[in-house]
């Protein structure tokens, strides 16, 4: 049954809004009593501990936790009530890094990044740098949320932005269950508008990718097979085209952790993740080539560590102090949530890794 989702865990004052509480849960229970190996011990079995950062390839910037949606699985705990927003000053510091680092991909995320009042300024400035792949993670419904966002497809096109959008299923029921009532219809309309300006065409330059993440306590299926099913259904039902589908595993943190515990699926889910552990995926986990920057400019190994308030293991912590030489080779900060990125074919913001 769909339900109206309105508040973040932070707004509700939930115990799980506290990142220390989440880390405590992830370290206790089945991991404390030895039923399951800790992530550290698991990667040590194949001599992959400690995980080390390689050369920076992807700079992922979270421009704020504010969002027009309150999705069940959201690891950011984003929502309309979140007020953390990146300032133009911090954006300027990020731009300096974009200009001077060798990163080939810039990845803007949120919340709904478009809700940051300086979003368009930032996109315009960042586009001037000429980075190879400029991603904006758009939740789609924002494009239909208010008149002031209606021109976003044209704006994205103007700056050759690579649009990556969430779509948990090609059916209304499963999508609305996870993302809220009415999300499916608005998402379909937004996808059609993106197609209309040229996004998602098989041989076009304007890339439109979809992100699939499961709507419940199970892991994603094969990415290629899912992409085929999505393409067939969206074309047949709505005449929609897109380029690639990324299958992403839900990590057991924040709202998804809250759901796992409330539905008594937590232990079974952790067993699934550990059973599906793939040492090949460890070799290419995204934290080894990505840097995540929070709304207030602090640096993390990934967006998940950002939400767990696990800063990078380095003398420098803030984007204003960025120094490639000091960051490369640093030890990645890990906990049991990392099993989410090493299950099966692996998982990252760019989909499978193995």
């Amino acid at each position, binding site marked *: 049954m769909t339900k109206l989702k309105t508040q973040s865990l932070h707004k509700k004052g939930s115990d799980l809004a506290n990142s220390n509480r989440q880390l405590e849960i992830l370290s206790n229970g089945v991991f404390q009593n030895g039923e399951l190996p800790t992530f550290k011990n698991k990667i040590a079995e194949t001599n992959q501990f400690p995980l080390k950062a390689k050369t920076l390839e992807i700079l992922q910037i979270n421009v704020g936790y504010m969002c027009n949606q309150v999705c069940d699985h959201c690891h950011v705990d984003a929502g309309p009530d979140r007020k953390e927003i990146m300032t133009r000053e911090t954006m300027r510091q990020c731009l300096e890094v974009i200009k001077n680092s060798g990163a080939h991909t810039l990845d803007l995320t949120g919340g709904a990044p478009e809700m940051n009042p300086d979003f368009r300024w930032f996109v315009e400035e960042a586009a001037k740098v000429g980075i190879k792949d400029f991603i904006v993670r758009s939740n789609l419904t924002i494009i239909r949320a208010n008149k002031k966002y209606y021109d976003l497809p044209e704006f994205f096109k103007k700056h050759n932005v690579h649009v990556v959008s969430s779509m948990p*299923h*090609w*059916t209304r*029921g*499963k999508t609305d269950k996870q993302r809220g009532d009415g999300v499916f219809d608005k998402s379909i309309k937004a996808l059609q508008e993106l197609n209309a300006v040229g996004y998602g065409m098989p041989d076009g330059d304007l890339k439109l990718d979809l992100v*699939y993440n*499961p709507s*419940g306590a*199970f*892991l*994603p*299926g*094969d990415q290629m*097979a*899912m992409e085929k*099913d*999505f393409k067939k259904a969206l074309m047949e039902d709505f005449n929609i085209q897109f380029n690639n589908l990324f299958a992403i595993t839900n990590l057991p943190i924040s709202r998804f952790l809250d759901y796992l515990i409330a539905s008594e699926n937590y232990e079974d889910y952790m*067993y699934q993740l550990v*059973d599906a552990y793939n040492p090949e995926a460890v070799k290419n986990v995204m934290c080894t080539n990505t840097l995540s920057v929070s709304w207030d400019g602090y640096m993390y190994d990934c967006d998940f560590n950002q939400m767990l308030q696990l800063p990078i293991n380095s003398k420098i912590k803030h984007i204003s102090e960025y120094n490639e030489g000091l960051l490369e080779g640093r030890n990645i900060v890990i906990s049991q949530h990392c099993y989410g990125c090493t299950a099966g074919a692996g998982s990252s913001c760019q989909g499978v890794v193995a």
Partner: protein
Amino acid sequence: MQKTYYDPADLRKFGKITEWSEELGNKFFEYYGKVFEEGALTAREKSLIALAVAHTEQCPYCIDAYTKDSLQRGVTKEEMMEAIHVGAAIKSGATLVHGVQMMNKVNKLDG
């Protein structure tokens, strides 16, 4: 002592059957894995067949496993229920078609 015949935790121990008969166990799992690979049928179609058979076999382990597997492959609950009805129709059909044998016998003995 275990009080019930089935324990959900036993499903994870399935692989242990190789411990008491390694060669046969390994051959079985190799075959099993091969069967469910993409082939002339998609892995998604095979998952739905397995789900239907899991019900006709009334195997609780298999029902758990292939419900989850179906969800992972994006199968909807409507598709899952239809698949189970296919299994149920064959089960009931298999019962009822034997009614012809009964009719034949009645006709021979008392026709």
